[in-house]
């Protein structure tokens, strides 16, 4: 917090020396929040231009929080954040329309192909972790834990599971009402990937909504409901929902800050990413925004309900960014050499 606002560099040698001393102290102090010290350059107030971000509704709030804080130090830069879903956002990103793509899953093969065709190269940065929570209605007193296998049987396409007793003979013979995000959402894609595996889809007879609060209402109002969405939505509605532990092979684990960060809540802990257009990274305002983003992502992600990645992730991110800005970096994709820069 105070790291980035603490001092304005003076022109004299004394000020520079003082600044160095303070930086070292402050960096050490800020170690647990973020390992990367951020000192705004002197000309940060003169930066201008527009930065366009789009994509995941999960990652969007982090980018918005970063934009909000960045605005305080660089009011000349206009940052616009849109929420079209991870899939919708990649369509724009790979057409070269946006500078930054918020993604709650890695880019797909198809999307890499789109980027390649449009000549868009990009760098990938991991910015935080999120847990996918499986929830049921509080009236439900029998489901405490589900195995990945049970979840797959329940959600796979052409599922034979209709009532709770199909999952476990001891459970009642009541029809399960399923709630989940719509298919354009990265959360949906991540769930499919983690639970069902591969490039498949789920059963279609569930109630989908792009609005996670609608899913919360659905599960909270239906005794036989089961749904999944980001952990933040469970945490804000704990009294109206019941969290289900997930057994990924090592016993039942409930999602929490610790189990998501150390990945023991598997397979439903997921990293959140941003993708940055390599060409946009040649612009000074995008460079500065990204430096600021990586330095503050951990703290701000926690502010908006997610879990900071381990410190070394941000250090790696920062090294990648520095190389990219210096012109010595290799974009993370598309990898083949036939990518031609967009004119």
């Amino acid at each position, binding site marked *: 917090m105070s790291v980035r606002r603490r001092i304005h560099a003076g022109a004299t040698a004394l000020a520079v020396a003082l600044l160095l001393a303070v930086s070292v102290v402050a960096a050490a102090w800020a170690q647990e929040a973020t390992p990367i010290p951020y000192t705004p350059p002197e000309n940060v107030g003169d930066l201008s231009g527009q930065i366009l971000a789009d994509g995941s509704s999960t990652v969007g*709030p982090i980018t918005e929080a970063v*934009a909000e804080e960045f605005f305080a130090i660089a009011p000349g830069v206009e940052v616009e954040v849109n*929420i079209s879903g991870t899939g919708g956002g990649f369509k724009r990103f790979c057409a070269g329309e946006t500078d930054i793509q918020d993604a709650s899953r890695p880019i797909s093969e198809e999307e890499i192909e789109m980027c390649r065709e449009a000549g868009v190269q990009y760098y990938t940065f991991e910015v935080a972790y999120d847990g996918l929570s499986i929830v049921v209605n509080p009236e439900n007193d029998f489901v405490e834990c589900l195995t990945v296998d049970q979840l797959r049987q329940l959600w796979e396409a052409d599922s034979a599971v209709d009532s709770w007793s199909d999952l476990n003979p001891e459970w009642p013979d009541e029809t399960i009402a399923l709630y989940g995000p719509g298919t354009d959402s990265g959360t949906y894609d991540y769930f499919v990937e983690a639970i069902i595996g591969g490039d498949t889809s789920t059963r279609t007879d569930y109630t989908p909504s792009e609005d996670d*609060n609608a899913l919360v209402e659905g599960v909270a109002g239906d005794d036989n409901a089961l749904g999944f969405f980001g952990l933040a939505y469970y945490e804000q509605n704990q009294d109206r929902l019941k969290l289900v532990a997930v057994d990924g092979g090592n016993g039942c684990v409930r999602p929490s800050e610790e189990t998501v960060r150390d990945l023991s809540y598997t397979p439903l802990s997921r990293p959140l990413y941003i993708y940055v257009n390599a060409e946009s990274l040649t612009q000074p305002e995008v460079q500065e925004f990204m430096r600021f983003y990586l330095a503050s992502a951990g703290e701000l992600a926690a502010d908006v309900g997610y879990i900071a990645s381990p410190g070394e992730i941000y250090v790696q991110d920062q090294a990648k960014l520095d190389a990219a800005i210096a012109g010595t970096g290799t974009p993370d994709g598309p990898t083949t050499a036939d990518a031609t820069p967009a004119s």
Partner: protein
Amino acid sequence: MSVAGREMNHAEGAPLAPSPGLVRRNVVGTILSVLFLLAIIVAVAALVTLLWTIVSRGWSWLSWGLIENPPSRRPERAGLNPALFGTIWIIGLTALVAFPVGVATAIYLEEYAGHSRLTRILQVNIANLAGVPSVVYGLLGLGVFVEFMNMGRVVLAGALTMALLSLPVIIIASQEAIRAVPSSLREAAYGLGATRWQVARHHVLPAALPGILTGTILSISRAAGETAPLLVVGAAGFLLKRPEGLFSSYTALPIQVYQWTSRPQAEFRELAAAAIIVLLVVLLVMNATAIIIRQRASRAQRW
């Protein structure tokens, strides 16, 4: 008439004995009046419930900070300044474009065009356009203004899309208002040697103005509350600055409401209610302006 006559004859002779027909008609009349009363109670009750829910949830969040601040991840610091100004820009520009074009179209159709097949086709199409879902206008705006004309996702593209959306209703309302001007007025003017334009400009338009304004304001108020077309033509979801010109990016109040309702924290949903109150105030101010202008215009009427 004849029935009433018979009743009267009855009354003169024997003591009053209403015919079964009259009783039935009275019963039907009473039942219907109760039904009509119920209808208005349902409508008003829905409105009151809606207002009550919104106001009770959002009231405590209303403050100058809400009007002055940009959005924030901290609910207590969050505001809707860029969205409010975005909406004002969009409404203003929409009115600037849609009003003259709409009124001109109505004057042409009513005062100039004859009763040809072409006029009828135009008429039917305008009436149909008034019923087209708003998101379709959004797609049209995306195709024509944002992409084909290459404006990008800017205020001007949003306002032009909204202008298209509100045009059919403005045209139809203006036509009705112009048609309601007595033809004796036109004939008198023609009789004195006025040209078609002079008749329209000096006699028909001033007389029809109150009706035209009502239709215009209602139509533009509707546009001000629209979310779908703006989302399609690229209003921003999150923006810290208000628009500075025709080619700035922008966001709007309904979009801010939509954004806040999708957040996990309950405070943001209360903020959304507060934003709805602000939007309602904007609409009420617009409608009040319409009423004032209309009353001034009808007072100036000379017949």
